């Protein structure tokens, strides 16, 4: 009876299946099919034998990775940099959004357009622009240093500066996008709240703290949780292009995603790369699902997916 009902509904609404089919097939091919490819994490990949016929090696690929010095380094870099990114991008975009909100419509259009531009250009373009600043000889920073008689710094060989450089580049790229998100939220605040606060004699700071930031809080929590859910993932392009894949900088700039790329392309150890990728996916999945659960608990509307 129930089965009949399902079949009947499917038959009656088959056009919906036809509409969904191409999308389903593509997701099947590029999102689900690769899951079967995960078996290579447990294999010693031999292209001449083919993927499935390669020898099983159990957890050897995982062991090899976790015993290597790289495991700690890339995990630390990924987590530390992502945390820095989350903190700085959130603080700065919220600040910009609040400033835009108080200034009103006058400057909105220009500021928003300009801040948004970096979000649209690729990291390759960003790496061109970065070079103008940190080039060892002609870069703006080194020109200024030599102008005041200080010694020049070759940034492409000094890993420690890259915490700062990467954070600045990241904030530059995403602040426009996030501040639009926050600003849009601010527009939905009921203006009578401010009028009421005025009557009660609240100062501007009090109004910002108790009304503006309070109203933004659910969104801040949600976006931060989303960031934490994705903390094991990095923007490959950012790390690859800004640093020019420079080995000297790996102590700070080598992250899980660049490591996996090298396992595929330069070290040529796809089995180990897939093993690292599998660990990353499983941890990432657990984190995102928990972040979503927490977000839902805080705010019914705040579910991420």
């Amino acid at each position, binding site marked *: 009876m129930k089965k009949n009902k399902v079949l009947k509904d499917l038959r009656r609404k088959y056009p919906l299946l036809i509409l*969904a089919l191409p*999308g389903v097939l*593509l997701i099947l*091919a590029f999102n689900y099919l690769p899951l079967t*490819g995960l078996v290579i994490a447990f294999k010693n990949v031999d292209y001449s034998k083919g993927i499935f016929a390669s020898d099983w090696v159990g957890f050897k690929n995982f062991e090899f990775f976790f015993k290597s010095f790289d495991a700690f380094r890339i995990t630390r870099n990924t987590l530390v940099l992502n945390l820095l990114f989350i903190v700085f991008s959130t603080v700065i975009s919220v600040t910009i959004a609040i400033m835009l909100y108080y200034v009103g419509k006058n400057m909105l259009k220009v500021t928003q357009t300009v*801040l948004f531009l970096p979000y649209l250009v690729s990291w390759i373009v960003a790496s061109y622009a970065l*070079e103008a600043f940190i080039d060892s000889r002609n870069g703006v920073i080194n020109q200024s240093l030599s102008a005041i008689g200080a010694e020049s710094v070759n940034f492409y060989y000094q890993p420690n500066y890259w915490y700062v450089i990467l954070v600045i580049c990241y904030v530059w790229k995403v602040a426009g996008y996030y501040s639009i998100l926050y600003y849009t939220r601010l527009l939905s605040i009921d203006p009578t709240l401010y009028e009421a606060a005025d009557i009660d004699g609240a100062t501007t700071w009090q109004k910002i703290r108790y009304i503006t930031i309070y109203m933004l809080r659910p969104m801040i929590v949600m976006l931060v949780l989303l960031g934490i859910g994705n903390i094991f993932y990095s923007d490959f392009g950012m790390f690859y292009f800004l640093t*020019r894949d420079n080995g000297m900088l790996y102590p700070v700039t080598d992250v899980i995603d660049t490591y996996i790329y090298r396992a595929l392309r330069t070290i040529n150890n796809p089995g180990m790369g897939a093993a690292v*990728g599998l660990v990353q996916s499983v941890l990432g999945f657990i984190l995102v699902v928990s972040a979503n659960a927490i977000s839902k608990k805080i705010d019914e509307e705040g579910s991420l997916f």
Partner: protein
Amino acid sequence: MKEGHFQILNRCPLKRTRGIIMKIKISKIILYLILGLITIAWIVPILFIFVLSVSSGESILQYGYTLFPREITFDAYTYIIKNPAQIINSYKISIIVTLLGTFLGVLCTTGLAYAMSRKDFVANKVLNLFVTFALLFHGGLIPTYIVVTQWLHLGNTLWVLILTLLVSPWNVFLMRSFISGIPTELLEASFIDGATEFQTYFRIVMPLAKPGLASVGLLIMFGYWNDWYQGMLYIDDMKLTPLPLLLYKIISNIQYVLQNSQYINAANNFPTIGARMATCVIAIAPMLLAFPFFQKYLAKGLTLGSVKG
């Protein structure tokens, strides 16, 4: 005594308001200044790309990179125009991939999103679960690479650039939330009037979802126009190199030459920084010029996307 009291009482609020107005004006001016500085800081890196593309090599050697070059030259552009085959070809590849990809991408994404949004459809739950899981769990780079090159045999084809990015679960959810905003009464009315599923979809849903189509379409379009990753992974053939990948190849070739030849004066033999920046300008200019016109739709898509994924 009493009068005096009155006077003070009368004056006080006035003075206070005046003070507050002054204060507001000053704080507003400070805000304008800060925002102005932020705006300048944000545009300067992009300005540098434009300015360096027209700075002469000698003035760079002498004064370094500066926003105010002593000498302006279009040598870099003539250098590129003299040898335009590669860049024109890359432009062609990027345009084909972007147009075809955006068109097919919007079509596939909307179809799937519509089926997912229909709560009365029995397959609705299965479809939603199917897309949600794809959004949350990734096979990762290496299994995907092996599937695309070894099983699907898409390596070094134009199709790999289009198909891999065609439908993203994220965009499907975004589109679904746009479509969910259409009142179900409209669909019901259409069915009562005897319209078929296809008629309802193309005549009612599609037109009403236009803002959503624009937003998602723009996201897909930017994704294609900016994409270097698929090319870097799957394309070795220079004939199939899209524009962003070309930018990367230029820079990595220069890097390679500089690292491996201490003897040649690289500045004389290879594209100078000017030529590289000029290539960059040629690649990003169309997008930057077009951006202000569709900023509204793009911002709308992005805001909705994050608030309700």
